[in-house]
């Protein structure tokens, strides 16, 4: 069992991701804004962060940059959720410091194995 922080403002997606993770016996922490995501990443020291890019307040990219600046977040695996047609999102996410990316829409058949690669 790992402790995973999900930063996602869309309730349906949060429910879906949380459901899949809990089914695989992981502990899920939820943040709904970029600021909250940064705060929990530093305070709770999760094993992995799943970060949506479009968030209210500071966006996912800025949140990643802030997490990377902190001591606790320096080596933390951060997986971004990118949209298929948003060409350039991946590149931006990597230059902000993410570890990997998963394309939306989430495929429940492969989601867990993709996440667990980074744990």
């Amino acid at each position: 069992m790992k402790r995973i922080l999900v930063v996602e403002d869309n309730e349906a997606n949060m429910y879906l991701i949380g459901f899949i993770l809990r089914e695989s016996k992981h502990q899920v922490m939820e943040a709904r804004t970029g600021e909250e995501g940064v705060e929990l990443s530093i305070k709770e020291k999760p094993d992995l962060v799943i970060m949506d890019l479009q968030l209210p307040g500071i966006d996912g990219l800025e949140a990643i940059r802030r997490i990377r600046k902190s001591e606790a977040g320096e080596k933390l695996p951060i997986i971004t959720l990118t949209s298929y047609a948003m060409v350039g999102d991946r590149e931006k996410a990597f230059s902000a410091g993410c570890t990997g990316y998963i394309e939306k829409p989430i495929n429940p058949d492969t989601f867990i194995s993709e996440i667990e690669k980074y744990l």
Partner: protein
Amino acid sequence: MLKKPLFNQQKYLDAFIKTAQYVASLTTQQDVWSEMLKVMTHFFGSDLVAFGECRADGEIIGHHWALPEGVSCENIFTAEIKEIINEVLEGGFLATHQIYAPEEYSIAILPIKQENQTTAVMLVGNRMSEPLVKELLNVYLAVAGLIGATTARLVSEAELRRHHNHLEKLVRERTSELEGKTVELEEANIRLQEADRLKSIFLASIGHELRTPLNSIIGFTGIILQGISGEINEEQKKQLTTVKNSASHLLSLINDLLDISKIEAGEVELGIEEFDLSALVEEVKNSFRVAAEEKSLKMSLEMLKRLTIKSDERRTKQVLVNLVGNAVKFTDRGKIEIKVAKKEEKVELSVRDTGIGIRKEEMERLFQAFTQISSQGRPKQEGTGLGLYLSKKILDLLGGEIKAESEFGKGSVFTFTLPLKYEGVKG
């Protein structure tokens, strides 16, 4: 016996030269007659001078004169003189006469011609102390010629100026007209660009908004189908599979539309990197294995074990998925052959099927947007009609080409090429 009057040759030669220089400096037609009156009285010392302008029919339309004190027009233009003037106008010759007005004058009436057409007459007279001798008449004839040439010059210069001004006016009008048009066009262009930008923004945001709910629709149908949330029966499974497939189809439709709007707006960022094309083809082939097996189609693959190319992997995959997907979709029995071959600096990929084929008349429209081939006797195929159009656009971006060959009822082969090394695309 009359003493033969002396003719001062030098005086008249000087006068003639001065006259020639003077008339050369005239620039407008307007005061040519008053200037010529000055010339005749000052340079030549003529005692009386008169000019009569006339129309082509001989009608005199204007008089200009310089007469000595005590001499009036009536004294000069007597009925007799008018008759002589008319003769000169008709014949174009010089005529001499003597008049009393009230002194005795020796006068000459000379035609002034512009290009062989008499346009004026000059009446010039001297007191009898210096009568118009033959030599002087010759000089006057030359002066009349000079006046004619000068008037002709001034007329054509005026004409030229008029033309010039007219042309300038036309050019100015056209220029301002064109400037107006340019401004209109620029404004229209700005409005179009703005509309296009709004369309892109609209598509991007609507695309995002449409995809977000699909995320959970596809996700949860998948979860329920897996049985994670509890057992479901066969009927429920079938229905949920339909939901999942429809949602996936809707998603690919949105993605195609977004792709096309990005490509058309020139906003595509290519991800150029080296990758193993063979692995990609294998992966695509495998992704269609289930679909092919369901229709009992054989799939074969002929290629090098490893073929590294430098291009956009994701876009290349998109084209190949489209072609193999079409082949599976439009083939009911037989096989699908995928071939990859290296040809000089290019790689050629072909997808051959034994499907329904394409009619000749439909081949032309194949790579246009929203085109779906008609398939008589078959249920209408799902699809946006954007796949081949998008594939062609992608290959244009990657420096590749695509073509299709088909025999209706027998099958089709779609072939596309890609440079082994993407090095940008001209234009």
